């Protein structure tokens, strides 16, 4: 095994960084879709109808107890078969990145649903009643009073969940997707397994930088949104 080469380490950046857009695209689209789906599922969990509640709770349970890599393979091998059998749609020639986005979105929707649900429940329902009494509609009460507070409460946990998503997105290379991680893996293969350490160290450094950006962004948002509204702990509702 050749000794650690600093020169090689630097060259790895040139090899993997061209694939950064692939990684970024997967992260961004998965974040968007998992957020949308997460909102829907959180809505379902808080629904009056027991059918929706059971369905969304079942979804959360199943997805939260599936390891990311297992789900990725299930989607990659299972979804084309399922769609071909049930709807006669052939998706075998779809790009691999689409399967990755589907897997990550499904997976993190369940985590985000929990984040959104608990944030929503932490906002005192009395404010909604107060809004109704001053003439706001249910929808106005939600988006003018409840939602802004829900977002502030959800933000730290949302950022944590997205951080986990970013890290799990690195698994995409197992189905053969060439993102940063995949490019690094190919590089190691081309070198017959040599310079693995330099390659992974370079990848780690790139992820550390991504996380500095994510963390600072979150802090900035928290500061902006939470400005002057340290939401007071809500007194317990007493009914006499």
């Amino acid at each position, binding site marked *: 095994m050749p000794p650690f080469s600093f020169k090689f380490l630097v060259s790895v950046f040139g090899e993997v960084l061209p694939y950064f857009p692939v990684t970024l695209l997967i992260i961004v689209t998965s974040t968007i879709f998992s957020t949308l789906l997460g909102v829907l599922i959180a809505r379902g969990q808080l629904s009056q109808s027991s059918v929706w509640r059971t369905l969304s709770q079942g979804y959360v349970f199943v997805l939260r107890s599936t390891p990311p890599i297992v789900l990725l393979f299930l989607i990659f091998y299972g979804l084309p078969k399922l769609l071909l059998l049930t709807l006669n749609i052939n998706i075998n020639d779809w790009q691999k990145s689409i399967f990755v986005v589907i897997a990550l979105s499904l997976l993190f929707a369940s985590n985000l649903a929990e984040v959104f649900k608990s944030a929503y429940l932490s*906002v*005192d329902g*009395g*404010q909604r*009643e*107060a*809004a*109704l*009494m*001053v*003439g*706001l509609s249910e929808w*106005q009460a939600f988006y*003018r*009073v409840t939602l*802004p*507070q829900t977002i*502030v409460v959800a933000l730290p946990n949302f950022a944590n969940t997205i951080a986990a998503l970013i890290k799990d997105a690195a698994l995409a290379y197992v189905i053969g997707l060439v993102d940063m991680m995949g490019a690094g893996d190919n590089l190691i293969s081309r070198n017959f397994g040599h310079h693995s350490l330099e390659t992974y160290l370079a990848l780690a450094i790139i992820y550390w930088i991504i996380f500095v950006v994510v963390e600072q962004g979150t802090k900035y948002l928290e500061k902006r949104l939470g400005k*002057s*509204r*340290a*939401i*007071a702990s*809500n*007194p317990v*509702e*007493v*009914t*006499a």
Partner: protein
Amino acid sequence: MLKVKNFRKKYQQHEVLKGIDIEVDKGDVVALLGPSGSGKTTFLRGLAFLTPGDSGHIEFDDQKIDIQTATSEEIKQLRQKMGFVFQNFNLFANKTALENVEEGLVIGRHIPKAQAKQKAQEALKKVGLLDFQNQYPSQLSGGQAQRVGIARAAALNPEIILLDEPTSALDPELVADVLQVIKQLADEGKTMIVVTHEMAFARDVADKVIFMDKGLVVEQNKPIEFFDHPKSPRLKEFLSRISAATVAHNGFEYEKATIIGNKES
């Protein structure tokens, strides 16, 4: 002005309200008293359809509502005539004191922004909190928050204000200011229903006192008669139980309030 007939409410098997009949005339201040669990709060919240009753009729001026068949349009129309002051204030935590009052004026009543601001500031001035208009609820004391809550309800100039134990969640030394603000509203001729435990306040400010127990109206009368010559044994017992501790204590708090009030006027 407001007539409620045979208002009933059940939680599962437990019958909380067993047919309440109440009449409120314009300008009346009605104090609703009773031990906890008697259904006072449930009744008040039912009037505003926050926890709707199961059956009964509500007549507000010329609007007649059958509780069982009430449509959301009817409820909206009824709520427009009502202001509600909550035990836990329920201020919008994401809005300043001023924005809390403006919200209903601008969004609920579609009053132009500039005019709404002026009205909101007037309302805050009345409760002595104009200097706090840019503070968020988390920066206000309980007493201040409740006064903003009252300003929020009163700014819309509703025909009746329902107050659900407005001082129960407050530290004792903050109660006086809030009662003073409510008294001021009463003096202006506002129609109000107040669920309260402040006996001295009920006696002094109310035009009519209603005593509820176990989901029924047990007795209603003018305050002097009500407190000095209670008729039903249940009310006698209730009054004797609270008189020793509460009246003495609250009487003191309330006297303090009138002194502050006099200084201001």
